[in-house]
Structures are given as C-alpha cells and as structure tokens.
C-alpha cells in the first residue's frame, strides 16, 4: 500500500491476481478516523469501510474527533439560484466548489469526497458524478464528517450574454 501523506489517500493494490485483474483501490479516511470511503478504480465501484475497535489491543492517539482543514459547507435552504455553489471540478470521487459568487475566489473553495451513496442529479434527473461539469451550479448536502457529500443537485449555470451582445 502507498500512503499519499499530503492528502491522506491510501492506494491499495491487490496481491495475487494477474496484473490486469488486480483491484486498485483508493481509500480516504474520515477526519475522525472512524471509517473511510473507498473507490476501486478497476471495478469502478466504491463504498465505505469502518474501524473495528474490538479487534486490537493497541491504543490510538486519534480516538477523539480531530479538526480538518476543509471548512464546513453551509447547507442551502432557499431557491437554487440564491444558495447554489459553482462547481469548479468534479469526477467520480470528488467535487470542488467555489463559495464565491463569481466562482473565481482564490481560497474560497473546498473539495469534498463523493462515494457510491452520494445522490447526484442534474436538472432533477438522477445521474453519475462523472456527468458534472465545471461551471454548473449545485446544492450540496454534506455528511457529518464534513468531508463527504451525500447529495448533489446540479444544473447548468445560467447563460449570461457577453458584453455588447445584441439579440
């Protein structure tokens, strides 16, 4: 296994099967270290794992909730155009949104994890997070770990005519 120290992502490669059949799994641990989200890049499935405390006698220094640098995302409550956030980037396992109204705010953005339990819709139609595109606006609901989104309700950004455009 290979741990990306900067992101906390653990890369697992299955032992045994031929190279083309090996499961290649990325694991992201929750900030409270009680579980993790995983994604199999080979089988293209994901899910969540849990910590099993009773099985080991060793103590950990991480049993208490620990802070994370990802800021909590205020849950939207109003019409989509007033409280939606602009998507900067999205893929099968993560989404980055801007908190600024222009979508260009340097530090005013955050990245959240997506897993197979995340419900994704575009214009009300269920879809996959891979269909999300930068520039869309979306409502997000965030899990208690403040790192994983449970629901993404996206729609295309409103079209704004260019300056000087006529017609």
């Amino acid at each position, binding site marked *: 296994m*290979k741990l990306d120290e900067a*992101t906390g992502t653990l890369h697992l490669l299955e032992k045994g099967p031929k190279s083309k059949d090996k499961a290649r799994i990325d694991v992201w641990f929750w900030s409270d270290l009680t579980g993790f989200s995983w994604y199999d890049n080979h089988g293209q499935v994901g899910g969540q794992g*849990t910590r*099993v405390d009773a099985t*080991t006698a060793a103590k950990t220094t991480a049993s208490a909730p620990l802070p994370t640098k990802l800021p909590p995302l205020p849950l939207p409550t109003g019409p989509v155009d007033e409280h939606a956030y602009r998507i900067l980037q999205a893929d099968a396992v993560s989404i980055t949104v801007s908190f600024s109204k222009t979508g260009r705010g340097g530090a005013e953005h955050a990245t959240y994890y997506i897993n197979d339990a995340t419900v994704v819709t575009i214009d009300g139609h269920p879809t996959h997070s891979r269909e999300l595109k930068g520039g869309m606006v979306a409502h997000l609901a965030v899990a208690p770990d403040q790192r994983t989104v449970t629901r993404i309700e996206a729609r295309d950004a409103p079209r704004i005519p260019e300056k000087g455009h006529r017609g």
Partner: protein
Amino acid sequence: MCVARSGFAEMPPGLMDALTSHGWAFPYAKAPVLFRPDGIMMDADGTARFE
C-alpha cells in the same frame, strides 16, 4: 511504506497510528483487516490481500 506527495485534501492527524493500531472492515477482505507498517494489508485469516 512508500510516501508520495500531491495537492488535494490533507491527511487526518493521527492517521498512521490509527491505521496500524485498529482493525478495519470493508468488502474486499475478511474483517478485521490490518494495515501493517511494512505496507501489507492482512485479512482476518492472516492472508496478505493488498500491498
């Protein structure tokens, strides 16, 4: 264990200790699985399942 660096989120404090000090459960191996400091993940039967 190999360590790489890139830019995304941040590793939760205490992750390394928690990784090697607890058992974990997920669908690919019989729980509890153990992440060993040498980079091998063992299942409940003591079989190395991931590296």
